[in-house]
């Protein structure tokens, strides 16, 4: 053998090898004293003939020298777990392989080091048929302790699952998935990774400050007698409320005894343990991730994981809320809060199509704020803006919430009144005039509000396009405006 030092060794250099007169005996000694696995030999009647020190030391209750004892008496768990048939098959000449994943263990030996009281060693086992003179004379069992390996694999598997979940979630964040879908995805991952049987995710509605949870299951709705699909919480109470109120995560392995708990509502399923983190975006509370009822205690690692999920969830919530806000901005008029022309046309066209299918009437009302130019020029633009907001309030007060009300130009407004008969046009115009009169009676403005109004009806018997209806209403409004001008000129003359 070249040792790399220029010197070559051969067997002659190891005189102790020459002294090895009983090589099999040496192996036997090694198997007995040093082998890092268990060896158990039985005869054809499954009576133990030998088991090595490794196995004898670990046997509980300690059985001393097991030689001569029937295998199934020395290890009654084989019969209890219906594993003795593996020995019968080995005696039939077939090698048996038992993996830990399916069987956990063959012989009940304590784990080393113990993971918890009563924890048993994970084992892989092989049961070989032992042949003598072409007949099967017994069995040889070789047991390997794989507990440490299983623990390592479990950690690795968990880390892989966590990485995969985070990658999936990151992918969802940049996809077109809705906030509802992402809420479900985050909850599923939080439950899987913490082995929790229940939980919820929710986001804070920026306009109301309420917690909106799209993920509470139907069972929860039934139990809590909640009818809506999306559950909304106005008050933040109990452990989950503590998380939102304090903007801090919470881990409670004895939820009922936790001083922050305020008890459960009647009919609520029991909560054994609870883990939750707030979703914070730039220090702003935007949502929450909560899980409960894991069969094991939650750990700091679980807490860290739920916090990471909550961080990603916060990003998703902020992005979706921002998108919604942008969407609203693109179809609403910032000054009055009504729809703008784009919003009106988009929604009104959709409603005209629906009316065509459902054969229901519609009413289009075109409204012009008279004298806006004069107000702007003489009283200033802030007063002009106030006149526009007054008009918007008047329209909101006159029409139903479901009607589509819009500011479609500088001083022009349009309303699409849904499910309205032609006769209602006159009623609505009268209401509008009464509203204007009421507004002017307040006498708190340096001008009198005046509106010119024109209406057009959508008759499902004679469907017309939205543009044509708007044209009709606009023309009627224009005629009214012209009439007002002529009347005013006549008065001046």
């Amino acid at each position, binding site marked *: 053998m070249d040792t790399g030092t220029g010197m070559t060794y051969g067997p002659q250099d190891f005189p102790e090898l020459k002294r090895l007169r009983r090589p099999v005996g040496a192996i036997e000694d090694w198997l007995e004293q040093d082998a890092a696995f268990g060896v158990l030999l039985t005869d054809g009647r499954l009576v133990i003939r030998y088991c090595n020190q490794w196995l004898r030391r670990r046997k509980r209750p300690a059985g001393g020298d097991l030689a001569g004892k029937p295998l199934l008496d020395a290890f009654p768990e084989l019969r209890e777990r219906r594993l003795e048939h593996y020995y019968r*098959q080995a005696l*039939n*000449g*077939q*090698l*048996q*392989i*038992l*993996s*830990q*994943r*399916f*069987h956990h263990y063959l012989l009940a030996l304590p784990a080393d080091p113990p993971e918890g009281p009563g924890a048993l060693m994970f084992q*892989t086992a*092989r049961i*070989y048929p032992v*042949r003598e003179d072409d007949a099967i004379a017994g069995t040889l069992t070789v047991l390997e302790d*794989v507990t440490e*390996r*299983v623990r390592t*694999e479990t950690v*690795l*598997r968990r*880390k*892989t*699952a966590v990485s995969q979940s985070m990658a999936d979630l990151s992918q969802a964040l940049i996809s077109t998935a809705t906030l509802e879908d992402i809420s479900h995805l985050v909850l599923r991952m939080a439950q899987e990774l913490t082995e929790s049987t229940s939980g919820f995710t929710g986001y804070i509605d920026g306009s109301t400050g309420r917690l909106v949870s799209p993920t509470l299951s139907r069972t929860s709705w039934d139990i809590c007698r909640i009818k809506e699909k999306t559950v909304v919480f106005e008050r933040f109470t109990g452990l989950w409320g503590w998380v939102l109120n304090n903007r801090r995560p919470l881990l409670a392995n004895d939820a009922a005894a936790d001083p922050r708990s305020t008890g459960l509502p009647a009919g609520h399923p029991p909560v054994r343990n609870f883990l939750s983190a707030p979703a914070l975006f730039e220090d702003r509370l935007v949502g929450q991730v909560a899980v409960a009822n894991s069969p094991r205690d939650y750990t700091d690692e679980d807490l860290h994981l739920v916090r990471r999920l909550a961080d990603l969830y916060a990003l998703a919530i902020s992005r979706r809320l921002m998108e919604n806000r942008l969407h609203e901005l693109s179809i609403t008029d910032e000054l009055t809060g009504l729809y703008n022309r784009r919003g009106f046309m988009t929604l009104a066209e959709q409603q005209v199509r629906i009316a065509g299918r459902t054969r229901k009437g519609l009413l289009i009302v075109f409204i012009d704020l008279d004298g806006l130019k004069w107000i702007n020029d003489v009283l200033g633009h802030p007063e002009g803006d106030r006149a526009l907001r007054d008009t918007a309030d008047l329209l909101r007060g006159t029409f139903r919430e479901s009607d589509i009300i819009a500011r479609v130009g500088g001083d022009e407004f349009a309303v699409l009144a849904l499910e309205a008969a032609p006769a209602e046009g006159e009623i609505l115009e009268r209401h509008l005039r009464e509203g204007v009169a009421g507004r002017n009676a307040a006498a708190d403005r340096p001008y009198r509000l005046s509106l010119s109004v024109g209406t057009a009806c959508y008759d499902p018997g004679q469907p017309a396009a939205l543009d044509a209806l708007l044209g009709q209403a606009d023309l009627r409004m224009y005629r009214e405006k012209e009439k007002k001008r002529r009347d005013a000129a006549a008065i001046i003359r």
Partner: protein
Amino acid sequence: MLLTAEQRDALTELINIAFSRTAAALSEITSRRVLISAPQLGVHPLGELQDALAVLIPGEVATVHQIFTGNIAGDALLVLNYEGATQLVDLLADELSPAGRLDPSGREVLMEVGNILLNACLGMFGNVLEVQVSFSVPRLRLEDLRGMLTDMLIGGDDIRVALVVYTTFRLKDSDIGGFLVLILGVSSLERLLAAVGEWAARTGDE
């Protein structure tokens, strides 16, 4: 070498009996319904087997290999493509292999499954032949199929043929395809076929 229709039917029936025993054993240890079917069976000269299987299982394969000796002797293989092997292990053990790779526990599961299947098939042939067939310790081999078959091509004076059984494991709404391959000398195959023929005649008479 071609099989007659009778030989093919009898062999398929025998293998299906062995497979149903394997499926029962797997269902027992995993507590879930496992079905294994052998829809097709073919015989190829060993030299052609590489090409035949390489088309069907390209890339990495996972093979449980067992040598058997006795009145009939040869090599028994359960061949799955690596992805299929990982999927089978995941479904049976109800856990996900990290990054789609077989960890040591996954390999043990595959060894146990392969051992049960090969034991059932070889045990069945032993019963039919009414002789004891001895099996070696199975080995799990994760390598290119071509390299492994080349090892088997070398050595052995007898002309060797491969009995290929197309195998499908079905569990949890998933089908995982694989192959049971028995590589035998022509004389072993002839003894096997003769014994199978006698078994078919015997069972047909009963």
